C-alpha cells in the first residue's frame, strides 16, 4: 500500500512526509476495504447505467456575446508572485 500511496501522491502532485505515507496507507487500507463492499456484495451486471449527475445531462449553451471580464489588476491581486500583467512561476523549460 505504501508504494501505491507514494505513486498516487506523485500523480496528485502532493509531497507527503514518510509519516504521512505510513498513516495514509493504513487508513486507506481500511477505507478501501470498506468501499470494496460494492464489489463483494453487489452484482449489478446490466442493472444500472453509470450516473454522473442527478439530472439528465445535456450541454448547456449560452449566446456567444462579448461581455466585460475582470480587469487584470483584480485578477492578479491574489497572485503569490507576479510580474507586470502576468503570474510569475519558476522556470518551466530546463536549460
Amino acid at each position: 500500500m505504501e508504494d501505491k500511496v507514494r505513486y498516487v501522491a506523485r500523480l496528485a502532485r502532493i509531497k507527503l512526509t514518510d509519516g504521512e505515507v505510513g498513516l495514509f496507507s493504513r487508513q486507506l487500507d481500511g477505507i478501501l476495504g470498506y468501499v470494496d463492499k460494492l464489489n463483494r456484495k453487489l452484482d449489478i451486471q446490466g442493472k444500472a447505467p453509470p450516473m454522473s449527475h442527478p439530472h439528465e445531462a445535456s450541454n448547456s449553451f449560452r449566446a456567444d456575446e462579448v461581455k466585460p471580464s475582470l480587469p487584470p489588476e483584480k485578477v492578479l491581486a491574489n497572485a503569490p508572485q507576479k510580474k507586470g500583467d502576468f503570474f510569475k512561476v519558476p522556470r518551466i523549460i530546463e536549460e
Partner: protein
Amino acid sequence: MDNLYSLTAGELLGLLDKKTIKPEEIIESVYSRAQSVDKKIKGYLNLDKEKALARAKSLPASGRLRGIPVAIKDNICVEGELTTCASKILRGFKPPYDATVIGKLKSEGAIIFGKTNMDEFAFGSSCENSSYFPTLNPWDTSRIPGGSSGGSAAVVSADEAVMAIGSDTGGSIRQPASLCGVVGMKPTYGRVSRYGLIAFASSLDQIGPFAKDIKDAALLLSVIAGFDEKDSTSVNVPVPDYLGCLKNDVKGMKIGIPKEYFVPGMDKEVEAAAREAIALLKGKGAQVVDVSLPHTEYAVAVYYILATAEASSNLARFDGVQFGYRCEDPANLLDMYERTRGEGFGAEAKRRIILGTYVLSSGYYDAYYLKAQKVRMLIKNDFEQVFKSGCDCILTPTSPTPAFKVGEKSADPLSMYLSDIFTISVNLAGVPALSMPCGFTKSGLPIGMQLIGNFFEEGKLFNAAYTYESNTDWHKRSPEL
C-alpha cells in the same frame, strides 16, 4: 430594544416594517452577542462590524431580507472578503467577485455578516478539520457542532447570526443543523446556483439555508433559489412561493418511513424522538407508510468514491500559481506544485485527494469509480420508486447520534464517514431534504429529524415541517451561554 439577536428574521422584518427598529440596531445587537459568546463557540473566522454597518447605510430601498444579517460559510465567495475554505492553502484569498447567492442576498437587502468556520474544503462532519481552530457545539462545548458547515449551524444556534448560508455535499448542512438544534436545508441539486461556491464535489454540492425556524428557512431559500446562466448545472424551473407553502395542515399527506433508517443498535433517544415525530404528524392527519430504500447500505461507499474522485480533480486548481499559498523557494515547477500542496493542504484534504486519485487511476477506475456510478443510479432509483408510489415525503433521523465529543472520531476517518449514513443518499440522488429539531436527549443535546422530498418539491417539505413546528416548541429552546 433588548435581545434583538434572539429574534427570527421574520420577527425582525416585522419590527423593521413598523419602523420600531433600524438595521443598525440589529447589527449592534447581533455583533455584541457574538462578541460575548463566540469566544466559547468559535463559529466565525471573520466578523467585521464596521463593514456590516457600512452595508446597512447603502441598502436597497426595499428587499425581502432588508436589514437582516446573514452569516456565510467560508467556501462561498464574497467580493473583497477573505474566503479561505478554512484552509491554509487559500490563506489571504479575497475573491474578485461575488457568488451568485451573495449577489441575490445583497440585492434583497441582506447584510453579509461574517464568514463561518468549516471543515477544510468541507471535508468532514465535525468542524475539527478546519486548519484554523475547531468550532464547538453551543449546547455543550465539549462536543462538536457537526460539519462541515459547523460554523454556520453554531452561530445561528447561539444567536450570533439571524440566518446563515452553508453548503451540503453529503449532509454538511443537515447534520450540523441537527446537532446544533436549528433548521437546515439542502435544496434539490440545481435549485440554487453554485457559481462562486468553491467546489468540493460538483455533482453533489448544493448551497442552502440555516435558520431558527421553518419560515425563515423558506424565506432564505426563496431569495437564493433560481436558474443562473453562470452555473450550467442550475435548472431552469420557476421558484415557487415557499412562504405560501407554510400551512399547518398535513391531512392526506403521505409520509414514507424507510426501514433501512431504523435499525437495531441505533441510538435509542434518536429513534424515540423520530418515532414521536411520526406519531405527531399521523395524529395531524398524515398517512404514514413503511417504505424501503434497499441500496441505502451502499451509500457511504459510493459517496466516498465519487466525492473524493471529484474533489481530487476540483482541488487540482490549488497549485500555488494564481492565488493562495505558495511554498518558499521552489527549485522548479514540479517542486512548487508538490510542496505547495503538501504544505498547504491539511491531513483530511490530502487523504481525500489521494483516495480520489487512486479510484480514478488506471487499473482501478472500473472497480471503484465506474461501479460507484452505477450503484449511484440504483440509489436514485430507490427514491424514485418511493415517490412514484405516492409518498409526498420521507421522514428519518438526520444523524444516527447526537453531537459526539471533540476528538472522539478524529483519529479514525472511517468512523467519521459513517456518521453521515442518513444524509449521504440524498446528495447522491439529488433530491431535497431538510433537518429540523425534534427533541432533546436527557443530557440536553438536540436531536434532528430529516424530511426528504421529490425533485423540486421543497414546498411539500416546508409544509410538513411547518405543521410539525407549529405543534411543538423544540425550536424555541436556546442553549445557555
